[in-house]
């Protein structure tokens, strides 16, 4: 049979040679043309036999000419076929693509596939297994085996479950092709025809396929993130719930690799159904009349104002509806039915965690209807960043925001059992409140500066930012200088080691009615504040001029405790740093008494004449004066007391005399 074929070729070759001789007589160079090859190989029934099996040697001329190599001659690949005469060696050697594609060839040689070939693995794929032979097409040609749509099938030729390769090779991943086709990637490719979807080669590369245990592999633990990030650029943002931002830089080895959560071939978008875009949602929720009848019969509007959402920070960050409203299910109609409440912790995990430990969060956990949840303060679809003037959490709007519940008579104020009342009103009159609302000073403290935004707790809680233990730090956020001064004063726990309660900022300055220290209102309260602990000193202060005058109108101008003792730097006189220390006291008095001198400072500003042991001079002076007083009044009291009845008698005597005289006079007049 072969002999007959060869005869035919020989006959054709003979004529061909004659013709060439006729045309190219002067040319003596020997050349084998494609026509020479096709003389034989265009015969559809040309076959060869190897190991007892027949295989076709037929080459479809048309297919070959349409292929990438169509312009190249057969012998440019089949070099050993370029021989004189009719017969070329048989069988021909395997075409070495690396002759031309040397770079790719080298990569391939080092790859898992290349190494398998080297090891004479019968299942090792050679170039032609993926790219084809005479029908090689460009990878962007839809018919190409390396066209993206076809890659899973090309690879699946071997990696499909049940093939000889999978049976004879121990590959840790099973059902690779099936899993892939179910994955988000596979679905995108196969169902949606998305040509930007990841296919096998997107992750494993085309020629440099290496096992994941090889550190150079694109799917090794070290490299897989980089590989995924070729398409998923924003994975840090998308994973804030799982992975704290700074870990990406600081401790990348602690972070799970993508594939540890998203199974390598099973990767699925789990947060929301992929087909659910905002326009789909707005088809229904864009209707202002959309309502839901609640279980208790109340109507609730489900309308979403798109304009509102347009200005929100979530829109800016391109957060789709379904990113927050996660529990969508295509099995439901509509898909959002019973999707439940939005869980902000999907993205804002840390903040929600903090919130959960706050009074607000703990109340919410008990299903207390009064408890504010995220949306109460931040809004829902129109959430704005705190830098936006219109945002309810913009500093200037915070007192009103908190006031919604904490204003007197509102729900939080009704629940509250402590001593602080009218807090919003008081705050607005305070230096902080007026700074914020009247002067527009954006550095003024609002509710959240002291109480924090998410971890607010009652002052009695040791964790609270306004607990006596922590309040100095809270105030020091802005008033650092004063806090530092205070820390070296006698009132600081660093200086006074005592069991007694030491005062903190709000004991003197109050919490919500904080005013400037030089206002009459504040100066008028200093005595009360210091007097809370220093009762005796305050009482005796009121026995002296400073104290007495301070009780009268305009009395705020007289020296108060802090004018002499200092305010935040207060120290007992025996400390050299004290304002009342011998070294400084003359200067301290000079603030008000320019002529102050050493003896002048001997004036007893806390003197009382009731203490004989401490102030004998005052005591005896007082009693001497009192004796004089009592003696004088006793004498004249008695004198007056006895005079009164006599005086009455004299008066009546006089009146009688007058009337007698009048009668006598009348008689005289009548007589005359």
């Amino acid at each position, binding site marked *: 049979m072969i002999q007959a074929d060869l005869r035919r070729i020989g006959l054709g070759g003979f004529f061909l040679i004659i013709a060439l001789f006729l045309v190219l007589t002067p040319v003596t160079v020997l050349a084998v043309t494609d026509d020479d090859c096709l003389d034989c190989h265009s015969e559809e029934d040309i076959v060869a036999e190897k190991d007892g099996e027949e295989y076709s040697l037929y080459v479809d001329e048309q297919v070959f000419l349409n292929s990438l190599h169509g312009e190249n001659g057969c012998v440019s690949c089949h070099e050993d076929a370029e021989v004189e005469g009719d017969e070329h060696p048989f069988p021909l050697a395997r075409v070495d693509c690396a002759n031309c594609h040397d770079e790719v060839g080298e990569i391939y040689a080092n790859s898992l596939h290349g190494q398998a070939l080297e090891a004479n693995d019968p299942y090792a794929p050679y170039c032609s297994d993926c790219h084809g032979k005479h029908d090689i097409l460009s990878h962007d040609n839809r018919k190409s085996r390396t066209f993206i749509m076809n890659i899973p099938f090309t690879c699946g030729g071997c990696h499909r479950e049940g093939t000889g390769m999978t049976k004879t090779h121990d590959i840790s991943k099973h059902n690779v092709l099936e899993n892939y086709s179910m994955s988000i990637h596979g679905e995108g490719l196969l169902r949606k025809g998305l040509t930007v979807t990841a296919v096998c080669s997107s992750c494993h590369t085309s020629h440099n396929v290496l096992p994941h245990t090889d550190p150079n592999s694109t799917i090794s633990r070290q490299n897989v993130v980089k590989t995924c990030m070729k398409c998923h650029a924003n994975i840090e943002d998308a994973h804030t719930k799982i992975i704290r931002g700074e870990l990406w830089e600081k401790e990348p080895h602690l972070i799970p690799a993508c594939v540890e959560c998203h199974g390598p071939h099973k990767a699925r978008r789990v947060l929301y159904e992929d087909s659910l875009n905002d326009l789909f949602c707005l088809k229904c929720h864009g209707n202002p009349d959309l309502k839901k009848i609640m279980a208790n019969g109340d109507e609730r509007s489900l309308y979403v104002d798109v304009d509102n959402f347009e200005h929100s920070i979530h829109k800016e960050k391109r957060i789709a509806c379904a990113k927050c409203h996660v529990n969508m299910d295509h099995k439901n109609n509509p898909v959002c039915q019973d999707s439940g409440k939005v869980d902000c912790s999907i993205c804002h995990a840390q903040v929600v965690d903090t919130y959960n430990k706050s009074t607000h969060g703990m109340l919410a956990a008990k299903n207390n209807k009064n408890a504010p949840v995220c949306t109460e303060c931040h809004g829902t679809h129109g959430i704005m960043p705190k830098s936006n003037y219109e945002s309810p959490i913009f500093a200037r709007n915070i007192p009103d925001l908190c006031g919604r519940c904490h204003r007197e008579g509102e729900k939080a104020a009704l629940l509250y059992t402590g001593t602080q009342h009218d807090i919003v009103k008081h705050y607005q009159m305070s230096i902080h409140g007026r700074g914020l609302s009247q002067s527009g000073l954006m550095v003024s403290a609002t509710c959240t500066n002291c109480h924090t935004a998410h971890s607010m707790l009652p002052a009695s809680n040791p964790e609270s930012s306004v607990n006596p233990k922590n309040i100095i730090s809270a105030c020091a956020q802005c008033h650092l200088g004063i806090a530092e001064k205070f820390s070296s004063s006698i009132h600081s726990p660093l200086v006074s080691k005592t069991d007694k309660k030491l005062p903190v900022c709000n004991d003197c300055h109050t919490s919500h009615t904080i005013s400037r220290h030089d206002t009459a209102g504040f100066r008028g309260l200093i005595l009360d504040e210091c007097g809370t602990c220093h009762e005796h000193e305050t009482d005796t202060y009121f026995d002296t001029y400073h104290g007495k005058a301070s009780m009268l*109108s*305009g009395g705020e101008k007289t020296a108060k405790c802090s004018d002499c003792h200092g305010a935040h730097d207060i120290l007992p006189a025996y400390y050299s740093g004290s304002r009342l220390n011998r070294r400084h006291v003359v200067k301290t008095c000079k603030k008000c008494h320019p002529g102050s001198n050493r003896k002048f400072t001997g004036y007893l500003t806390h003197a009382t004449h009731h203490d004989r042991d401490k102030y004998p001079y005052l005591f005896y002076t007082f009693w001497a004066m009192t004796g004089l007083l009592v003696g004088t*009044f006793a004498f004249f009291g008695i004198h007056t007391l006895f005079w009164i009845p006599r005086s009455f008698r004299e008066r009546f005597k006089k009146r009688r005399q007058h009337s007698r005289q009048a009668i006598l006079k009348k008689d005289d007049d009548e007589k005359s």
Partner: protein
Amino acid sequence: MENPQVKYVQRFTVFPRFLHFLVIISFLTLAVTGMALKFASERWAEIIAELLGSFEVLGALHRLMAVVTFIYFGLTFILMYQNWRKSGKSLLQFILYKDSMIPNLNDAKELVQTFRWFFGLGPQPQYGRWTYWEKFDFMAVFWGVAVIGGTGLCLWFPETFTLVIPGYWLNIATIIHSDEALLASGFIFTVHFFNTHLRPEKFPMDPVIFTGTMPLDELKHERPREYAELVASGKLDEVIVPPVPRWFFVISHVFGFTALGIGLTLVISIIFSMVYLYL
């Protein structure tokens, strides 16, 4: 009231009346402003401070009236000097004679007679130009001005005074100043007011210190010895004067009642506060 038949005698010339006017004005102001500070914790003290503006106004008025006090204190010596020169007596005689402003043995006698009279053991004494309680009032002012004025100056100029005296003396000065003032106000607003104005024979007030004149009858009755002496010396006619004009009489009463009212109100407030504060 001004029966043209009623004869009036001159008791005070313009100068002593003017001095007493200064005393009333300054003493009332000092008492009101000072007591407002002493009883600063009381509501009435607050009201006074509020009405006047502030404690600084109280202080300013107090110091101003202290100056007035020092002035009348000085003027009184001039009055005394004039009286001495008019009397034609030697200085010693002027000081020691029966109708001197200085208390003497006769006053002690009259004091005893007065108490006998109180108990119905004898007739009312034949008082002369000055009764013993009037002399006490007069001397008390001297004593008071010296003590209160002296300590007051310490408190007015503490920085200067402490160049000499120790600082705690200011505390002592405060106690003396304040308690002596309490004594003075308490005495004037109760004892002096009663003795001079409020006792039934005089009630509601004796305007002689403003008008300078008193009815002859009253002189006869209340100061029989002075009357007798005037008759004996034949000088009675010299002191008989026409009654003061009605407008002056009215003004005297208005002013007098105002002063009485202020004084009584203040002393009642003080008594009320002391009872409230100490009991």
